[in-house]
């Protein structure tokens, strides 16, 4: 049995989308963020959730959004989280940094900061994240650099920036940071930009080889179905939704994964139930734990990936239990079958 199948009493980490408010309007934003959602959690409610996470011994909180630094009580909340000894990984667009935030992050053993940048040049980045953002993001990275803050630069790999990955890695190294790459998924605003920005099979193959050849590149997509053979050292290689992780949205609703924030996948509200109750009993979570695309059963890699990313499968096929449409094994099999036919 894989480690990911060992039942856990609570998530290992939580993705917490603390606000939908954002000063950018990236065309691939997974949560289509721009303005705050009505009824976002208060500081008092957030502290109550942190108390639950601490009691359950959740190890990490990955903050995103929206732009977490635009949440008015974000730093006081971080203080409270750190009093509980929980690690916070903060995903920011780097354009809303304040001196207070940088001072708070600097030398803090419980903070990791990840700045999103989607191109090594203004032309490429700004086409995705908005006019003038490259300059502002680089300025933010410069402010964070050299301050004893574990820093990474995160790039969502798309057809626009694919050819700049080596340059992005160099750019990150120049600021003492590591490059992290994330998979482009068709959720949020990315549903509209999917056809334009998705990688074609040949590029996904090359990306897989590139990732496999360079272990210094980080990826939050440890269940990245396109690269897991070469990247076992990353640890998890299957989907961790509802097994290892869960997502809290700005109003306290809990989902198996940040990419699956629609009503049918909601496990419940933290305003009504405890996280433990949702984790143990929510039908949406039980459903995720049972996912096992039958058409993948005969694949030699099935035990490694269990069908890949359900979010990509769902958004492209409307079937949560279908195989990941970007699985390279499927393409290889189809290519072989096509070759045999002709």
């Amino acid at each position: 049995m894989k480690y990911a199948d060992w039942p856990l009493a609570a998530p290992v980490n939580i993705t917490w989308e603390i606000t939908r408010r954002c000063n950018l309007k990236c065309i691939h934003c997974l949560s289509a963020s721009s303005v705050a959602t009505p009824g976002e959690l208060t500081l008092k409610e957030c502290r109550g959730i942190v108390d639950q996470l601490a009691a359950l011994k959740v190890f990490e909180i990955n903050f995103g959004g929206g732009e977490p630094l635009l949440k008015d009580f974000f730093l006081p909340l971080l203080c409270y989280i750190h009093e509980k000894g929980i690690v916070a990984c903060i995903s920011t667009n780097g354009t809303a940094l304040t001196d207070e935030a940088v001072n708070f992050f600097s030398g803090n053993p419980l903070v990791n900061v990840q700045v999103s940048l989607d191109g090594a040049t203004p032309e490429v980045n700004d086409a995705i994240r908005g006019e003038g953002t490259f300059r502002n993001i680089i300025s933010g990275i410069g402010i964070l650099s050299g301050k004893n803050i574990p820093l990474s630069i995160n790039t969502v790999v798309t057809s626009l920036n694919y050819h700049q990955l080596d340059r992005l890695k160099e750019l990150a190294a120049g600021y003492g940071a590591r490059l992290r790459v994330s998979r482009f998924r068709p959720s949020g605003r990315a549903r509209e930009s999917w056809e334009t920005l998705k990688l074609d099979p040949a590029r996904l193959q090359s990306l897989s080889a590139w990732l496999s050849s360079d272990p210094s590149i980080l990826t939050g997509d440890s269940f990245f179905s396109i690269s897991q053979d070469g990247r076992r050292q990353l640890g998890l290689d299957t989907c961790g939704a509802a097994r290892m992780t869960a997502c809290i949205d700005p109003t306290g609703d809990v989902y198996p994964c940040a990419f699956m924030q629609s009503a049918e996948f909601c496990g419940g509200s933290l305003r009504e139930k405890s996280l433990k109750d949702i984790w143990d009993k929510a039908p949406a979570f039980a459903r995720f734990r049972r996912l096992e695309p039958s058409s993948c059963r005969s694949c030699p890699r099935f035990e490694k990936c269990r069908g890949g990313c359900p979010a990509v499968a769902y958004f492209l096929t409307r079937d949560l239990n279908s195989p990941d449409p970007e699985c390279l094994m499927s393409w290889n099999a189809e290519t072989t079958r096509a070759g045999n036919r002709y």
Partner: protein
Amino acid sequence: MPLRLAADVRVRRESWGLLFYRQAPHKLCFVKSGDWLQPAHFDGTWTLETIIDDVSRRTGAPPEIIARVLPRLTGRLIKNRIIADEIR
């Protein structure tokens, strides 16, 4: 020598044993120890010998069997920098 968690490691109890988390590489370590080990065993007050006594008392397992298995496990955890057997 007392055993204690390494500085950047946290641990929690699971139904199948202990789940360790190393902060710097964000890595997990699954230890299928059943009822034998408790997170408190690594708070710096327990030695291998006192843990063996405790496991035997709580589970009824013969101390000689525990003494044969446990040092290998703790040895691996020390090697992987999950726990330390140094005096701070």
